[in-house]
């Protein structure tokens, strides 16, 4: 069986500038922080980022100046605030942003995952989200059509096929058979639409362990390009059944991001750290982070 375990630095070196990277996080849950930090450390530029409901991962990448095009359904840091770096870049027009919705972006990934070139949908119609898409660089990705069977009006969406999808998962084996505990938003269709899948796993288990409950495998190993083992890899966002989000660190981030830039934050926590483990040390170390550990009966 193929052993796909690699370091995130190794994987990141294979991502060219200008690549389309899809991120698997949702607001402040299961963000691919380890992957995003390394993209920033390696100075990637002109990335296209897509994500259903964007969170800290996307805000960090945009704040670091790594993104030129954004394709999202929405985004926030929940109660902690807005995606200030994203919004500021949009307001300054240094970022091309294309707004969709949770469902329409899921549909675009689903079409990609099914090998369809487009998919019909009944949302977005008669909205200014659609008007803005039609007036932008995305005009070529949305078309109107009547159903050839019923005559009903549909919007057609072009399939979305990212170059790479990063997904943070609780458990994977070395081949990349991955389990996702709790809700999965658009993880499955996004990953399966992508040309390459990179997993960031909290825990690596044996294939025998996976074989005991194969019904829990959401992403099968044969589709996976690389498995990165990174405990606390989503910190400071939450990973269900593993650890809670770190409210203090999120507040600290927002204190920077809201004020006009995250250069100082990046210097301390990303450029100033050599890898994810070093970053966790900078945040108090894994012993200190045990305070965030999830209670088994609650999952948080």
């Amino acid at each position, binding site marked *: 069986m193929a052993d796909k375990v690699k370091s995130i630095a190794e994987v990141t070196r294979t991502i060219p500038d200008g690549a389309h990277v899809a991120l698997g996080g*949702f*607001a*402040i*849950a299961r963000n691919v922080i380890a992957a995003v930090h390394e993209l920033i450390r390696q100075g990637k530029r002109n990335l296209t980022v897509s994500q*259903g*409901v964007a*969170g800290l991962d996307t805000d960090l990448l945009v704040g670091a100046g790594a993104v030129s095009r954004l394709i*999202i*359904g*929405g*985004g*926030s840091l*929940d*109660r*902690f605030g*807005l995606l200030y770096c*994203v*919004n500021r870049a*949009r*307001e300054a027009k240094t970022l091309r942003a294309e*707004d*969709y*919705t*949770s*469902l*329409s972006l*899921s*549909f675009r990934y*689903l079409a990609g995952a099914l090998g369809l070139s487009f998919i019909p*949908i*009944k*949302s*977005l*119609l*008669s*909205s*200014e*989200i659609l008007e803005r898409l039609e007036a932008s660089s995305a005009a070529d990705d949305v078309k109107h059509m009547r159903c050839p069977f019923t005559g*009903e*009006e549909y919007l057609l969406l072009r399939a979305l096929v990212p170059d790479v999808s990063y997904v943070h998962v609780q458990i994977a084996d070395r081949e990349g058979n991955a389990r996702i505990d*709790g*809700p*999965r*938003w*658009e*993880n*499955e*269709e996004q990953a399966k639409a992508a040309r390459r899948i990179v997993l960031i796993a909290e825990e690596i288990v044996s294939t025998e362990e996976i074989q005991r409950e194969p019904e829990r495998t959401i992403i099968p190993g044969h589709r996976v390009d690389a498995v990165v083992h990174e405990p606390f890899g989503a910190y400071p*966002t*939450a990973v*269900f059944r593993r650890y*809670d*989000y770190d*409210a203090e660190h999120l507040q600290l981030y927002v204190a920077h991001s809201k004020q006009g830039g995250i250069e100082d934050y990046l210097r301390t926590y990303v450029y100033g750290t050599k890898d994810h483990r070093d970053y966790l040390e900078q945040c108090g170390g894994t012993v200190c982070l045990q305070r965030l550990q*999830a209670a088994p009966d*609650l*999952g*948080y």
Partner: protein
Amino acid sequence: MDDIRATEIMAAAGARELHDNDTVIVGLGLPQVACFLAKSTHAPNLAALLEIGVINMRPKDTPVGLADSRIFYRATCWSGFLDIMGMNLHRGVVDVGFLGALELDRYGNINTTLLKDDGKVRYFNGSAGGNDVASLAKRVLVIMRHEKRKLRAAVAHITSPGFVDGKTREQLALRGGGPHRVITDKAVIGFGVETRSAKLISLHPGIGLDDVLANTGMPLEVPEDIPVTPLPSRDELRLLREEIDPQGVYLGKLS
């Protein structure tokens, strides 16, 4: 009863709009409170869905948002967007969708994307599932604060369509029934059958019409006799205060 909070009246008014066996897409905050209240009283078989892929959650701790694991607790199903927003909402089996709004206009169009101040654009959260719910749910309930700058003649951006330009949903090529009620901290607003424009349904106890009109930035049809929004019952208040939101996270502090 004079210590009843406006939020409790809103939650009870929201709950009253939900029926037993309804399938409901819920948002965090007062919509969730209203939904739990309905489920604990007249709608025990209501199915509550969260867009990220959670069905019939019964959280015991207060979540900060949809991404907070606290809201996954004691659910009967975990799935994802495609299940909830696709195979339920797009499938046409969602009776009610709850939405919030940065701005709302007379036709129930909702803005959650951007505001324009002196030509300068400020961005907010965007749609997430809002536009999908507004397009596809059989009826849409909005819970929001009653402020002139939020209830506007025209919104800065139609994120989620209601009856755009007063058109029917059929004319707009939308399957869902559109906005049904807007529940604010002062009143309940509906939409005229013919005009599809905002119409006052009831005033909350102690709120005068002049107060509502002074705080409404859009045309509002006012009936001759204006009903009063019913107060929550004793049982509803007990549930809200002792079981559903004892810490007042969404209902606010008791004065």
